[in-house]
């Protein structure tokens, strides 16, 4: 009886996956030729999707902080594991809007580096503050991470595609952090995750020194 039930579930799951795979493949077959063949502006690195996609991943200080958000969410567990990665891009958007509007934000370089130190430190120390505290910390640093993205909007290209690339890249970095953070449930994984936290904090320290040296 149990075997039959498990078999039924497996079959259902396989069916779902195969249907999804078919739909995705069909879409993939439709899209590339269409997109590459007809769109001259907006897809490649001209202020469009790829520009937005590359912007968050070309700065190591941004990358490590965003990965750290995912790692910390994974350590904190539900509901933080999904609330923090939702909150960060949304609040980062607020920071980006401030950047677009040329709203001045003090010591941006220091703020971003400090975020990597703080978040890496939280991961390394296995810190589990209340969700509200974690949320406030994330929100504060997200403003700093969003501001340069908005301020760096190219004068050309397609803003909607740039925004999509920027948000998707940020979200995927969080997802990457969460995926790695899920190793935390195993002893060796816990060591790896906490070591990664130390590394992130170290990278943040390096960028903090750079920022102080530049007077940012």
């Amino acid at each position: 009886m149990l075997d039959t039930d498990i078999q039924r579930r497996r079959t259902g799951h396989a069916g779902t996956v195969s249907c999804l795979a078919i739909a995705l493949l069909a879409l993939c077959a439709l899209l590339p030729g269409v997109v590459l063949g007809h769109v001259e502006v907006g897809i490649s690195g001209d202020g469009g999707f790829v520009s937005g996609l590359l912007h968050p991943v070309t700065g190591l200080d941004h990358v490590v902080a965003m990965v750290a958000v995912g790692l910390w969410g994974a350590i904190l567990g539900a509901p933080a594991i999904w609330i923090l990665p939702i909150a960060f891009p949304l609040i980062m958007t607020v920071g980006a809007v401030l950047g677009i509007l040329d709203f001045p934000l003090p010591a941006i370089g220091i703020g971003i580096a400090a975020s990597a130190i703080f978040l890496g430190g939280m991961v390394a120390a296995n810190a589990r503050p209340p969700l509200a505290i974690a949320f406030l910390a994330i929100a504060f640093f997200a403003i700093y991470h969003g501001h340069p993205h908005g301020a760096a909007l190219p004068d050309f290209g397609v803003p909607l595609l740039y925004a999509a690339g920027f948000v998707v890249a940020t979200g995927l970095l969080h997802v990457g952090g969460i995926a790695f953070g899920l190793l935390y449930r195993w002893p060796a994984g816990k060591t790896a995750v906490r070591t990664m936290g130390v590394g992130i904090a170290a990278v943040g320290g390096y960028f903090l020194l750079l920022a102080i040296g530049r007077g940012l």
Partner: protein
Amino acid sequence: MAGHAVFLLMVGAAAFSTPAYAHGNADTLHQISDGVVLFFTALEFLLPVLIVALLAQPNELRLAIIQVAALGIGLLTAVVGLQIPGDPSALGLYARGYLIVLGLLVLTNLRIPTGVVLVVVLVTGMLTGLEAGEAVNDDPAAGSALIVGFLSSAICFYFSATLVASRYTEGWQRIAMRVVASWIVAIAVLDIAFMSVRSG
């Protein structure tokens, strides 16, 4: 069942092009292709589809039907020259505003009266259609074949996306949908800011 429907829709989408190619001349073919391209290469058309698909409850196609109908009406309204009152350039702002509303509905998972949801979806579909109509009007040589290409690809994508998304009922799958909805909200907010700055 839904998976089979998705598969059949995809086959239908592939098959659709064959009779069109067989009976139309080269210009018609290009216009149909341009209509398909217009839909699939513009996030302002794809994102409303995706967000309504995420909003749809399991086995519910009502929202997709309403949105497709509203999109068609909005598109034809724009093509015949009717515009929304006020500044025409504000159309994108309105459309993105409704995208944010829909995104927040998915994100917060609030229990909103069905009638309100239907009205929001209807207005979003109309605004998307009006935007599409403006894009069609930008190409004076575009004929009805372009509209056919646009609407057919829109219909296929609307129903496929809704059917696929409405199958995801597990807890973590609904959370993933809310994450995607938050991304769409963020994209729409950024686009509104970009548009506001560019329009001075």
